């Protein structure tokens, strides 16, 4: 089927501009291979120049073929389509290259689901310590702010009840009460915020033996409901944009504390500050008693 392609359509303009681009690139490679080599950052050696000249000749031929094509509509269409398809393929592959590299580098949260009542987060780590020690450390809830960055304090009110205080935005803090709803020693600990709490949350920490004397596997499952208004914003700030990332880092610090007795401290903990000693030690060191 013949399809008439009007002059001046986008396809033709693309083909024409590609033709001129090929001629320009070809001439540059042919006549000034040294400058081209420097432009694209390759060595300016005799062999590179020879290679670039060869590329240049090929580009010139391509460009001439594109521009010198007879104005037969069908022919132009097929040629232009081929050229633009090739160009699109090259650009597409390049973009795909970058995209797939990025995708490969993304770390997916173990689980982060929006549920009807809020956000569900699941994270896990292995601690090279006996399960009894890991459980006992976590069960003493006052220890939690030692590795959970956004917690200010946890106060044990009685055996089952505790009061939690977390840092909010701009120096504020939010507080809520929680109850331990299930406790199986060295196996699992479940909590739930009390009715009327401004921050509704519940979760379970499960403890188990890692195989082959690898210590303790620990899994945190947490669900929370961000309330509306300023507290909601506070909570969003509390867990960051990606709560699973926050909990992931908290668990890494927990592991450090139990395995090494301290939390590793960077000189440049974020990209905002260079890795160099600080003039004054910011913040108090958070060290908890750990038997090693």
């Amino acid at each position, binding site marked *: 089927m013949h399809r008439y392609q009007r002059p001046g359509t986008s396809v033709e303009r693309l083909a024409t501009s590609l033709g001129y681009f090929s001629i320009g690139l070809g001439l540059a490679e042919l006549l000034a291979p040294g400058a081209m080599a420097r432009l694209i950052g390759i060595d300016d050696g005799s062999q590179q120049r020879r290679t670039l000249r060869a590329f240049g000749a090929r580009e010139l031929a391509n460009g001439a073929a594109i521009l010198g094509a007879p104005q037969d509509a069908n022919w132009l269409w097929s040629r232009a389509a081929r050229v633009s398809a090739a160009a699109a393929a090259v650009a597409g592959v390049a973009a795909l290259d*970058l995209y797939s590299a990025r995708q490969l580098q993304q770390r997916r949260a173990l689980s982060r689901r929006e549920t009807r009542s809020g956000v569900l987060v699941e994270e896990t780590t292995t601690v090279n310590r006996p399960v009894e020690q890991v459980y006992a450390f976590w069960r003493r809830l006052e220890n939690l702010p030692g590795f959970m960055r956004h917690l200010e304090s946890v106060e044990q009110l009685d055996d089952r009840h505790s009061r939690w205080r977390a840092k909010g935005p701009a120096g504020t803090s939010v507080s809520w009460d929680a109850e331990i709803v299930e406790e199986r020693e060295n196996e699992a600990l479940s909590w739930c915020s009390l009715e009327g709490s401004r921050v509704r949350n519940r979760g379970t920490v499960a403890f188990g033996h890692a195989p082959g004397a690898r210590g303790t596997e620990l899994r945190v499952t947490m669900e929370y409901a961000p309330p509306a208004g300023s507290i909601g914003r506070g909570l969003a700030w509390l867990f960051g944009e990606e709560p699973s990332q926050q909990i992931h880092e908290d668990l890494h610090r927990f592991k450090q504390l139990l395995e090494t007795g301290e939390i590793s401290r960077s*000189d440049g903990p974020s990209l905002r500050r*260079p890795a160099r000693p600080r003039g004054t030690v910011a913040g108090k060191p958070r060290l908890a008693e750990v038997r090693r």
Partner: protein
Amino acid sequence: MKANCWHGTGRVRVEDVPDPTILNPRDAIVRITSTAICGSDLHLYNGLIPTMRSGDVLGHEFMGEIVEVGGGVGNLSVGDRVVVPFPIACGNCLQCERELFSLCENSNPNAWMAEKMWGYSPSGIFGYSHMLGGYAGGQAQYARVPFADVGPIKVPENLTDEQVLFLSDIFPTGYMAAENCNIQPGDVIAVWGCGPVGQLAIKSAYLLGAERVIAIDRFPYRLRIARERAGAAETINYEECDVRETLRDLTGGRGPDACIDAVGMEGHAPGVWGAYDKVKQSMMLESDRPPALRQAILACRSGGTVSVAGVYGGFVDKFPIGAIVNRALTLKSGQTHVQRYTRPLLDRIQKGEVDPSFIITHTMSLDEAPAGYEMFLNKEDECLKVVLKA
């Protein structure tokens, strides 16, 4: 104190920064006497390692005197003379228990950054990007050393700084590269890259019983040092001849039993391959240029081992996986588990079996670090290794 700081591609500056302080009980502070510029520092200098920030203190090869210890460091005292391994390792995690110290699970506080790049995080490293811990480095007058009860090794007074400094990185790195070759009697080993690590890999291959070592580079002075001081049996200048053909010729058509890549992510190659990688790297379509690694894989004897000591950071193209699979090659790599090697290699130095100081070509003051980087990068004045006196 004075410290050599990174300020972007091709820019380092010695400036005044605050003195380090003890932040954790297992920290120690070292007053640095000698420090060195590593080939891998040039990857930072060339802007190829992500998560660097202007002002970062560089340097991961250093030694000196303990001036302060935290309450949790029982085995070191003020005044001890120590060499500090470049990977920071806690000694408590599963990886450390298996002596895989460069994979310590606890020493990288910024592990999440490395996890985004590589899936899991290796250990923290001094002065080597934020994703590897954001630790201030050792091209400075002082450094804070975390887990000082695990890493630093005391060195005797009768050995000079120059003899023991390279226990911090490149001697163990060259040694592990050779050890990874699982050298058997009669084995011929080929080493790509005659920089400091390559030279010490050649030396180590002989220490571990290699029959012959063949060294490959493009700088005649480096090939000369490989022959005269590291003891390479033959050298190949890859700009002058076909490396694979020459290796085949030198090994009776078998190929080297093991190949060591001591080049890493900024390899050069003549011709189209070199241009291909440079274009792809400059367009950010591959992060690393692997011509040496490709060649090592293709040159290796069937069933042999390719040991990668050079640093690679991300992704490469045209990786000859077909040769690895169909010819049953073993690929071994890793940042060096330095803490595993410091004691046995110090013993070898003390016994006089090896003196790694043969690679030093330039000694400068810390103030001259920027000039040292330029000289090392451009191979000026036959530069092979720069030691800085803090």
